[in-house]
């Protein structure tokens, strides 16, 4: 059942709403017709997945308030969607009754529930409810932004909605006219979203007032871009800059947003003549044409294809016809003609005929040679489409766009910038309100997932303490790797490894020396500093080199403190030697935490009879157990067991209350350590049995370097993309 409408003679003289909505009786009657399908097709047609039969059933039971709540579970803008959705292509198009061409008027029912419900207070979350401290910025307050903001607020995030214009709503405010979507309705819907706790900030242009970096620095954890498609397209024909030639955006913004139809009460003018030519066949063209008619002009729509091919909603085409708007179909403007004063006087057009279908499946219009004629017009409105506003992308080169200017997103709505999401017309080009809302909804979900992932990672990147390591014993295995420089330490840290050892293996794997005893304090500190700079999560252990304590036991404390104070390490590691207990105790009582190291201790390998497994007989094993116990008593927080039979390592691990970290000591240890260069395949000279190679980097790097060498030799590198340019005109100046 159609809605009642203002009659055309009447409505052509005002900006009041054309469709008058259902009465209670109308709504009940229409709701009664619904078959309440068990597997409703209408829901499949709804981009925001409203439970349509459920809300219709509530209307049937005369519960419009509950019906609205049901709709609002999925749709944050029901009064808007009830009015501007292309239901014929969506829910109503799928309705089983549409097979007999009598679909349920779902749009009118949604509108009825929304209009009835708005006079009643809204239940659910409110601004005063507890919110998460996680801030999310939503940029653009059109359909996509409003939906994303509302959904994120419902998930209890602290949402700020930024709008560049002085009025929120995006295309709902500046684009769609009052008679199709009253601004009061828009403002009420936005007020309801603000009631969810969304903070609205108008008069802020992201890209100018604040950059995306500013937003992250202000503590926003994610950003949603719902900027729409706001850049008007022109045809590139002569005369487009004449006076009274408008983009549809300009014309509609003047009339709708700035209320030029109430000039001079509202101070923004719109200057039109008696005959308006609107170019284009979409909804924007029809909105412009019908505004023009209401401002008192004769309006013709110029469209290059036929009426059947017009992308505008059927209902709007009918409304326009009733309002006396005429169509110049199969007509293409080629030139706008003007007077000497600069004002428009006509549009030169050429007649078209439809040829073969193009990529969109519509038949391509082809100009008929010699069919040119001049259409009398003193005002021209160009409504041939909009693309996304390039401003933000221009000042944010990291934000990748397509050649059409749309922002590129992945399947999770994330742009090329980590933590920056986008949806709606900015990613698709001009589309419907409801499509943008659907995107806003799905992007909000994606942002929620992203935030949860980041939050759990944040817990992971908390700085590890000695206490954390102690508490891990018997809970989970402890991970430890070496690092000697900034780039590798960054990666080890990022991977969430518990401890990073700046080992004296520096001597062999980085400095090319043949013994760990040959590396000194200065080299160790130099590298430990680099590692500390990179680390935010891992516990950093400075490995005391041979000269710093075994050679000079009296200097142990002084050198240990240098690791802490100069290189910002968290603790030090000492290998077992004859005065080990004494210096360990001294070091610990000076306030520096110590990790012990027994078994194969490379600094004293000669005394141990070379690099071989220790504790292989009962006596030697007992010695290791005693050493471990003594170190625990001395106050070590953990002990490395190197090259120890797995069973012995197991016994030690069981006997100690502090964690054991094994290297070549079997699987029973509380944790494991490897030399990172060994496990990455970066150190080719020697690989002990206990190393597992996770990667064979050496040959890969070699191959890359050889390729580079050949590229340079054969002049394949650098190419144009690696070079900097200078403008030709500057070059010419230089030559002269």
């Amino acid at each position, binding site marked *: 059942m159609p809605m009642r409408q203002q009659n055309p003679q009447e409505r052509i003289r005002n900006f009041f709403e054309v469709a008058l909505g259902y009465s209670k009786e109308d709504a009940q009657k229409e709701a009664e017709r619904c078959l309440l399908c068990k597997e409703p097709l209408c829901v499949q047609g709804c981009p925001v997945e409203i439970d349509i039969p459920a809300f219709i059933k509530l209307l049937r039971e005369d519960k419009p308030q509950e019906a609205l709540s049901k709709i609002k579970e999925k749709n944050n803008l029901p009064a808007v969607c009830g009015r501007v959705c292309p239901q014929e292509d969506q829910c109503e198009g799928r309705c089983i009754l549409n097979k007999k061409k009598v679909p349920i008027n779902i749009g009118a029912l949604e509108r009825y529930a929304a209009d009835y419900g708005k006079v009643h207070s809204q239940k659910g979350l409110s601004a005063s409810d507890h919110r998460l401290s996680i801030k999310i910025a939503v940029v653009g307050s059109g359909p996509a932004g409003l939906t994303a903001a509302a959904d994120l607020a419902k998930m209890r995030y602290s949402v700020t909605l930024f709008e*560049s*214009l*002085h009025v929120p709503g995006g295309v709902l405010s*500046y684009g769609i006219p009052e008679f199709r979507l009253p601004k009061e309705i828009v403002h009420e819907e936005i007020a309801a979203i603000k009631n969810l706790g969304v903070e609205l900030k*108008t*008069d*802020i*242009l992201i890209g*100018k*007032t*604040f950059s995306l970096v500013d937003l992250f620095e202000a503590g926003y954890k994610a950003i949603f871009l719902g900027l729409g498609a*706001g*850049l*008007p397209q*022109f045809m590139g024909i002569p005369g*487009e*800059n*004449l*006076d*009274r030639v*408008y*983009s549809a*955006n*300009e014309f509609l*913004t*003047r009339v709708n947003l*700035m*209320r030029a139809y109430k*000039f*001079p*009460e*509202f*101070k*923004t*003018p*719109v*200057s039109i003549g008696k005959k308006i030519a609107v170019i284009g066949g979409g909804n924007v063209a029809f909105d412009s044409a019908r505004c023009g008619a209401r401002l008192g002009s004769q309006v013709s729509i110029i469209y290059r294809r036929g009426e059947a091919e017009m992308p505008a909603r059927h209902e709007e085409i009918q409304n326009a016809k009733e309002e006396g708007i005429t169509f110049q179909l199969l007509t293409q403007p080629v030139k706008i003609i003007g007077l000497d*004063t*600069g004002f428009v006087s006509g549009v030169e057009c050429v007649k078209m005929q439809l040829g073969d279908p193009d990529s969109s499946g519509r038949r391509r219009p082809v100009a008929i040679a010699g069919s040119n004629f001049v259409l009398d017009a003193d005002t021209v409105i160009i409504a041939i489409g909009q693309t996304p*506003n*390039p*401003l933000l992308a*221009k000042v944010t080169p990291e934000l990748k766009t397509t050649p059409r200017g749309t922002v590129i997103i992945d399947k999770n709505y994330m742009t090329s910038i980590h933590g920056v999401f986008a949806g709606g017309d900015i990613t698709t080009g001009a589309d419907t309100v409801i499509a943008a809302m659907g995107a806003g909804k799905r992007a909000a979900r994606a942002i929620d997932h992203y935030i949860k992932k980041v939050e759990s990672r944040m817990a992971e990147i908390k700085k590890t303490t000695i206490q954390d390591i102690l508490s891990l014993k018997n809970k989970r295995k402890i991970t430890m790797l070496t690092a000697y420089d900034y780039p590798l330490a960054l990666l080890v840290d990022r991977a969430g490894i518990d401890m990073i050892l700046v080992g004296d293996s520096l001597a062999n794997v980085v400095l090319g020396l043949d013994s760990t005893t040959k590396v000194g304090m200065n080299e160790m500190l130099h590298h430990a500093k680099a590692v500390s700079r990179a680390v935010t999560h891992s516990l950093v252990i400075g490995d005391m080199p041979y000269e710093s304590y075994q050679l000079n036991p009296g200097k142990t404390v002084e050198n240990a403190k240098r690791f802490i104070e100069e290189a910002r390490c968290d603790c030090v590691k000492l290998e077992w030697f004859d005065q080990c207990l004494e210096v360990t105790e001294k070091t610990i009582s000076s306030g520096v935490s110590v990790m012990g190291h027994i078994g194969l201790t490379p600094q004293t390998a000669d005394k141990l009879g070379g690099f071989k497994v220790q504790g292989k007989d009962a006596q030697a094993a007992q010695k290791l157990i005693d050493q471990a116990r003594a170190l625990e008593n001395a106050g070590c927080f953990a002990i490395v067991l190197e090259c120890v039979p797995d069973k012995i390592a197991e016994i030690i691990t069981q006997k100690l209350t502090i964690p054991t970290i094994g290297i070549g000591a079997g699987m029973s240890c509380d944790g494991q350590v490897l030399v990172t260069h060994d496990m990455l395949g970066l150190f080719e000279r020697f690989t002990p049995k206990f190393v597992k190679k996770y990667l064979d980097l050496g040959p890969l790097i070699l191959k890359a370097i050889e390729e580079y060498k050949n590229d340079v030799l054969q002049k394949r590198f650098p190419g144009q993309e690696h070079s900097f340019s200078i403008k030709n005109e500057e070059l010419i100046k230089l030559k002269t």
Partner: protein
Amino acid sequence: MFRIIKKETMAQGITALTITAPEIAAKAKAGHFVVVVAKENSERIPLTIANTDKTAGDITLIFQEVGFSTKELGLLNVGEHLEHLLGPLGTATHIENYGTVICIGGGVGIAEVWPVAKAMKEAGNRVIGILGARSRDYIILEDQLSLICGELFITTDDASYGRKGLVTDSLRGLLQAVEKSTHTQYPELVYAVGPVVMMKAVSELTKEYHIKTMVSLNPIMLDGTGMCGSCRVSVAGKVMFACVDGPEFDGHLVDFLELQKRLNSFKEKEACLNIACPRKT
């Protein structure tokens, strides 16, 4: 809401308002503008930022009360608020050490030249100023610009101050002097803001001398963010949006005639507003 903290009458009908707007002040550079909505039902009008105090977080707008909206703005007083303020907008002036820069301001355009002259000076340029107005009373910011400009020339239409004539007379004099001299050089850049006819005349003159010339255009704007195309201008035959691509363009490439005509788009409507104008001037 943006509070007016200072109001000054610079000349008859030329007003300076200083407004608290820390977020805009933080980002503002020479050449930027803002869009102002004075009251709830007012127009959105673009105004160049004449001065910025980043520490205090305020900006100063200097405007001539010519139409309804600027007159309405001029009626606001210290302690009152602007309903809306958006910015900073536009592409900032490209500042570099060119060598010698001649900055030319005509009428209220002097206020728009001021921040550019300052920035050019700070970048190490030798700045020469030429200010022009109807008469002595309309020459604004002379003290401020004399501190910046090594040489400052003034022209008035009625000979009440400085040289009688137009800014182009002074400019021609300077260029001819270089032509005859053996040791002086042409300026590397001429920067001009003022009425369209003035910018056109300056650009035509400097074209003869092949001197790079930048002009700051003042077409009608609506949103100021590249959304409506009201401010489109032809530059080297290409359509540009002054609000985002400009408002500064190469004066040798601008279609001034078209700009002048487009400024007349709403003249008829404007007249109708002025009848209802609060000050009825």
